[in-house]
């Protein structure tokens, strides 16, 4: 009886941990706020250490959710899904550089960046990539929208923005009373 209780307890603990891990996307998503998931922003900045800014999510429009987040050395990536445009309709990849050959440069809506667009399919659905290049880094937004949500590309990009490394560093220094910083 006691063994069964212990086994049940262990199984419950495992389930709780797995559930915590599964429902964890929100905690690992870099949000454009210093008060929400700040460490995710720091980790993203560490992934591309020379970039002067990092991409983040300002606010998710209705019907959009974070599908996955993957941050590792040299690359950060998160995917957004939409109830109309489909699963992983927008995938953002942040690296130190992008190949923008074949893409058209258009005036950027983000100060301090250059914007490029490459459109592949406009019907049915929408497929294309938008690049933001800036000092030390590049953010590529890959759109793969279903027909039903093909008009949502702009709505989705409104959800994304950038936060400067300088801002992050200032917060780090303040929180650690000067002990921690991106700089050595």
């Amino acid at each position, binding site marked *: 009886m006691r063994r069964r209780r212990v086994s049940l307890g262990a199984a419950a603990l*495992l389930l709780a*941990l*797995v559930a*915590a*891990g599964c429902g*964890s996307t929100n*905690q*690992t998503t870099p949000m454009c706020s210093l008060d929400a*998931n700040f*460490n*995710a922003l*720091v*980790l993203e900045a*560490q992934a591309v*250490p020379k970039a002067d800014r990092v991409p983040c999510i300002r606010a998710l429009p209705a019907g959009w959710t974070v599908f996955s987040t*993957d*941050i*590792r*050395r*040299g690359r950060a990536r998160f995917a957004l899904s939409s109830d109309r445009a489909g699963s992983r309709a927008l995938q953002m990849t942040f690296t130190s550089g992008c190949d923008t050959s074949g893409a058209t440069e258009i005036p950027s809506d983000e100060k301090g960046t250059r914007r490029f667009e490459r459109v592949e399919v406009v019907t049915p659905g929408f497929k294309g990539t938008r690049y933001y290049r800036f000092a030390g880094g590049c953010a590529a937004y890959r759109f793969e929208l279903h027909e039903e949500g093909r008009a949502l590309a702009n709505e989705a990009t409104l959800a994304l923005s950038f936060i400067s490394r300088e801002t992050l560093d200032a917060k*780090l220094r303040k929180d*650690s009373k000067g*002990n*921690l*910083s*991106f*700089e*050595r």
Partner: protein
Amino acid sequence: MPRDLRRSGRYWFWLAVATVVFWLLVFVTNGTITSPFERLDTGILRTIEGWRTAWLTSLMRGVHKLGSDWTVRLLAWPAIVVPIVCRRFRHTLVFVGALILVKSITGALAVLIHRPRPLGVSVIGGWEGFSHPSRPVADLAVVLLGLTYTLVPHGRWRQSAKWVSGILIGSLGVSRLYLAVDHPSDVVIGVIIGVAVPLVAFRLLTPNEAFPVTFGRGKAAHLDVGGPRGDAIRLALEDQLGIKVRQVRPFGLEGSAGSTPLRIEVDDEADTVLFGKLYAATHLRADRWYKLGRTLLYGRLEDESTFSTVRRLVQYEDYLLRLMQAASVPSAEPYGFVEITPEREYLLVTEFMAGAREIGEVEVDDAIIDHALSVVRTLWDAGLAHRDIKPSNVLVQDGRVILIDVAFGEVRPSPWRQAVDLANMMLTLALRTDAQRVYARAVLQFAPAEISEAFASTYKITSPSQLRGDLREDRRDLIPTFRLLAPFRAPISIQRWSVRRIGLWSAVVAGALVTLVLLLGLLNSTRLL
């Protein structure tokens, strides 16, 4: 025989508990208590950073590959596959369980604690996700411990394997600190989780006394009767049956698969020797699987309930032995059984058949044939079936045939099962003589119609595996020969379908599919595929 974590197991267990307490404090204080650790971690990393040289960096990058997914995969698969090949499924299950648990714990904690990579130092190695706890270190630790406990036999070799594992885990930890991809506390906690989980799991769920790692011809059912179990057996025999034991040792292991047979030397003036059969939970599970397999293969002819506990299994064999004695079936005299560990291990004690030899090792004459057949007749008359008649269960002592291993016996069996007992006994005898001679003696005690019914009911698959193997090696085709000797009778189908059997088959197939899908999903999520 309580389950024992042993000293090092308790040490790692309490380290893990201390870690959990620390995390709880971190959550309760909203991370305030981590400041001194942050400073200490950064200080250590900065000191190590000062030691960097080109050749050391190159070396550490090489060592760092120990934590790669490929290394973990390469090490994990042998720990999964080899025990399966050696039919030690429990080891595989415990290892896969420990691996999934470690991956789940470290993955979930990384997200809950979301600690960035070291700051204020130059990170010069590859990393993935948050840093606390160090997942590559925990992963390497769990697979190395898994390899140690699934592949390396207990003793000096396992001790050496633990040292090697320790050195490899330590090397990976050092390399990750040198490359500044982890904080020192990440590595320490990674080691604690990666070692404590498999160590506690293996020590509790696959104790060496019950589930030894062996690669020889020994069967998984055989338990080690040395050490604490040997002491427990001596104590139980003295306390419960008043038998003072001089020595207990395994005996005739090759002929037994369902229990651990023992020779018990009693410490008395007559130098009495007793026979013991040690049963554990593993045997109970084996019995359940055996019966499920038989039900699936043969249907309602073999339908029977499984035993719910080891105690009931031993009680049943003790009862059958007493029943056989009462029915004058020559068999071992039972002396009762003793409890070694409540509901887990029991020892059945009977007389020791001194001088008895397996029928396959003696010259079989007509007297022995007649006596062996009369034993079957006695079983029939008493409404009993032995159900496991094979050369190793038919002993000859002073020209008398004795049946042993009555655990599979049945009271009021089906006529089919009784007929199969006769056929199996005749086949056992014919292996040492010839079919014509055995048939000629059999008609003196059984009607030809009974013999033809016995062989109409008998197929190779209805014989115990040892007898089946002997028949395969013997080139005389004994079953068809007996069928020719006896009056013709159409073969009796052994397949009986019932709603229960169809339900069982459906449940087994569905269960296997669900298990496969779940397993593939789990292996995929743990990056083993």
